């Protein structure tokens, strides 16, 4: 039975479901349902990651599961692309599950057993989304994923705000799912065969293919958080418990990227080059928009949610760039851009999960999510602080960590964009690289703000002095993800050729990326450029090591502790440190057109001066509120029909029946 990787993967996903069900045996026991089962889930995740990694190079295989509608069994298929994302799911879930095993406490809304069920169903559903090979199986898995995560988001369902956030998430998820369903409806091309194999062979008129592409972009964009469909992210992430935020941001958003790749490069087949400009433009705008909003947030989980939007923007930029290259026949560069996308997806799974779990540990230790009430936690929570620092440096795109590798690959692809044989476009594309760099540099700003305000400085509240470090299981989870960031950063020369094979399997280019040596990454044979993170790290560490040695051995002068310099004021308090709002002020000033701001400035004569600034997303006023108003008025118009009398309703049925009969006869 378990003789092929696909069978093993399905068995492991089933194991997750069984673990979830097992939580219902003793739903109130935290030790059993909240600890032991989660550790077991982490083991399953590890196995899944190993199997998926080992199966990336093995040929594609399919399986027919006799479940589902009578004449519509579930088609499952595992190919290289699926394996990569299964690896991402498994590897990230190891760290998240371990952390979750130490995280959940009783009395936090949902019972531990139910939470265990939802959590593991969520994991399994994501796995089935990746394995699905027909529209029916895909939509079932997709919806289970949305529902499971909805219940996880509303874990603390007694709080009205959280219920609202959950509702918004569910709404946008379903609007998106509808678009995906329609996209599949077009893709079957009149054959009424909904398996992906049939869609691959179906021949679509370019206009219909374009419509399918747009619908897929809308649907998957809604799940991923592409502007302007991003509004649910900053609401849902703070509402969810931290391991759930980590899972949603780190893994679930990637299933949308997977879907986008699957539809545009596999199912549609031959996208026309200029289609790529749409995700490219939207992606760049999303990246910039996300990071600018991240810089102005004062809630640490909202900040990370906006940072996720930025990274989704980067991923869509890569997809768009790859489509442009692919469409004009520059397959080598298309492959490079897609490698960057896959690499960044894996990277982001690790680093964003790490950061969200870090905020979870802070949240549990202090009960605070607002940056304005935190500070100085590096002294109380050294483990969390230093491991989070790894994630912070990685997501800021600093070498030699992993975030840098994928951004470097994408920039290298952008550098060749001027060779696209289309006038104007070839001049505009290099500017995209500049926007990308701006977004990456702003991410550095955001991360300094995040880490500096949470972990450095002086505690802004007295209660922070009793903050405790993360528990052992939580540390293990953080450590796993941080190690992933480091390894992905140091060994790109091993990973990129594998990803190149995956891209070739998808039908874009061949395994072009030749690494000349095991320690060195060279993206394109035609360009003399390479990056060797190990050598790089060696150089930096040597330089730092020699400096420390010389500094400590030669100049061994006494160290004295004293009060910080207070400019002679003598009454410095922790509240005089820069606040989150203060740190975001340059951004609010520079990017004013992006924001709608509600500001309350104190007058100089005020006895109790009060300063308040609330930054709004303009899309609420431009897009969402008008739609909501329209829906309301439409509902009001329709409600005329609602009389509340049985006789009226019977009359409606009768009239309907007559009309139907009349039209049929």
């Amino acid at each position: 039975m378990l003789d092929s990787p696909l069978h093993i993967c399905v068995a492991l996903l089933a194991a997750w479901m069984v673990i979830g069900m097992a939580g219902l045996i003793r739903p109130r026991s935290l030790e059993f349902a909240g600890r032991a089962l989660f550790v077991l889930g982490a083991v399953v995740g590890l196995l899944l990651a190993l199997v998926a990694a080992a199966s990336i190079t093995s040929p594609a295989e399919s399986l027919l599961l006799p479940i589902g509608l009578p004449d519509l069994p579930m088609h499952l298929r595992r190919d290289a692309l699926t394996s990569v994302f299964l690896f991402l799911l498994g590897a990230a879930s190891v760290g998240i599950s371990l952390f979750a095993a130490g995280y959940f406490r009783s009395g936090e809304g949902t019972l531990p057993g139910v939470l265990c069920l939802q959590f593991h169903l969520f994991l399994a559903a994501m796995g089935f989304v990746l394995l699905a090979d027909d529209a029916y199986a895909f939509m079932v898995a997709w919806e289970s994923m949305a529902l499971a995560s909805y219940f996880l988001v509303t874990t603390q369902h007694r709080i009205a705000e959280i219920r609202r956030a959950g509702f918004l998430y569910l709404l946008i998820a379903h609007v998106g799912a509808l678009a995906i369903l329609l996209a599949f409806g077009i893709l079957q091309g009149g054959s009424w065969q909904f398996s992906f194999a049939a869609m691959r062979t179906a021949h679509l008129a370019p206009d219909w293919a374009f419509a399918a592409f747009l619908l897929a972009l809308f649907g998957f964009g809604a799940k991923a958080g592409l502007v302007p469909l991003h509004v649910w992210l900053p609401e849902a992430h703070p509402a969810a418990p931290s391991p759930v935020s980590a899972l949603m941001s780190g893994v679930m958003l990637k299933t949308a990227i997977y879907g986008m790749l699957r539809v545009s490069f596999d199912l549609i087949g031959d996208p026309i080059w200029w289609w790529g400009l749409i995700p490219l433009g939207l992606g760049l705008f999303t990246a910039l928009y996300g990071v600018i909003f991240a810089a102005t947030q004062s809630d640490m989980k909202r900040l990370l949610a906006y940072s996720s939007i930025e990274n989704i923007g980067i991923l869509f930029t890569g997809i768009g760039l790859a489509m442009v290259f692919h469409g004009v026949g520059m397959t080598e560069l298309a492959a490079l851009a897609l490698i960057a996308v896959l690499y960044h997806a894996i990277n982001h799974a690790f680093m964003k999960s790490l950061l969200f779990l870090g905020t979870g540990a802070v949240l549990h230790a202090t009960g605070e999510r607002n940056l304005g009430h935190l500070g100085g936690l590096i002294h109380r929570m050294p483990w969390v602080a230093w491991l989070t620092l790894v994630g912070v440096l990685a997501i800021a795109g600093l070498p030699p960590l992993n975030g840098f590798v994928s951004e470097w690959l994408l920039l290298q692809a952008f550098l060749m964009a001027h060779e696209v044989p289309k006038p104007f476009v070839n001049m505009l594309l290099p500017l995209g690289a500049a926007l990308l760099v701006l977004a990456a540099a702003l991410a550095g700003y955001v991360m300094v703000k995040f880490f500096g305000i949470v972990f450095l400085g002086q505690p802004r509240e007295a209660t922070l002095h009793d903050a405790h470090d993360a528990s052992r299981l939580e540390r293990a989870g953080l450590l796993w993800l941080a190690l992933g960031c480091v390894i992905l950063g140091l060994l790109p020369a091993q990973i990129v050729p594998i990803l190149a094979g995956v891209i070739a399997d998808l039908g874009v280019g061949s395994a072009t990326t030749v690494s000349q040596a095991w320690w060195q990454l060279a993206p394109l044979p035609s360009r003399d450029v390479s990056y060797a993170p190990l050598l790089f790290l060696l150089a930096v560490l040597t330089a730092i090591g020699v400096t420390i040695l010389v500094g400590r051995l030669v100049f061994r002068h006494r160290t004295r502790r004293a009060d910080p310099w207070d400019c002679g004021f003598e009454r410095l308090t922790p509240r005089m440190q820069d606040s989150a709002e203060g740190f975001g002020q340059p951004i609010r000033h520079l990017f004013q057109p992006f924001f709608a701001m509600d500001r309350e400035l104190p007058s100089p004569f005020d006895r109790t001066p009060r300063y308040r600034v609330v930054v709004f997303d303009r899309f609420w006023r431009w897009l969402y509120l008008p739609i909501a108003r329209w829906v309301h008025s439409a509902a009001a118009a329709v409600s005329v029909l609602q009389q509340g009398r049985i006789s009226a309703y019977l009359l409606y049925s009768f009239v309907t029946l007559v009309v139907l009969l009349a039209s049929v006869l």
Partner: protein
Amino acid sequence: MSHWLGWLNQVFEVLIALAAAPIFLGWVNQCRAWLQNRSAPSLWQPYRGIHKLLHKEVVLAHNASSLFRIAPYIVFGTMAAAAAMIPSLSTRLPFTSAADAIALVGLFAAARMFLSLAAMDVGSAFGTLGARREMMIGFLAEPALLMVIFVASLMTASTALPLISERLSGETLAIHPSLLFTAVAFGMVMLAENARIPVDNPATHLELTMIHEAMLLEYSARHLALMEWAAALKLFNYACIGMALFVPWGMATNYQALSLALAMLSLAVKLIIVGAALAVVETLSAKLRVFRAPEFLATAFLLAVLGLLVHLLQVAR
């Protein structure tokens, strides 16, 4: 054989950079003093300052964390490592394969990030203020700097600095309009990134205007010495990047002692000219308000973009 010579060359170049950086800073300060009709400090003044600081006792704030203590070493180490990647004397560096210009920009960003985090560590109002301004300048300068590098790399089909400068020096001696634009852009970025007038004033300790100095307020003794030395090294590194891009002539392309000696001579001459030019610019301009700095850097960015477009048009023609 050549392998070992290469590494020897590499170490030699770093040592030269470490030694020359404070002198270069001293030269700029000297020129500034002359231009402002002051009596000039000695060329060795930065060395004296570093020497003095290294022999003092360290005063740490009570709540300074280990991040605060290790940051000077990291900042200095990254700057020294950056010096190894920039071709200042020779283009035949074994390190070419380790890091290209983009990684170099990343390395500078890493140094900036640690500097800013360390500044926030003690939790005084000034540290955070400096950190936030430094990061603001940083995220504005980084795209402009990368645009400059992009133009050069488009002309040479490589992002590795030694290759870029080797190929550019092989070109016929003609004024490339694209390089002219980017040179101006690079100069502006260099001023901003190194906390020089008009963006920041290295001599000021006036609370409201300082950026770089604000971040160093809590540092003392050997930590401060390392930070100051790292700042000098950063200026030196930027000067070397600029020279490698825009005046790439005179660098050694083999491991012979004679060509290395010639390269040192040409480096010295170029540094003297660059330092003097820097002093002239700093003397002639006034410091901008902090919120004018983005305009300054946006100008730099647009100039680099202009360079890019000019290059693409030239190629298309």
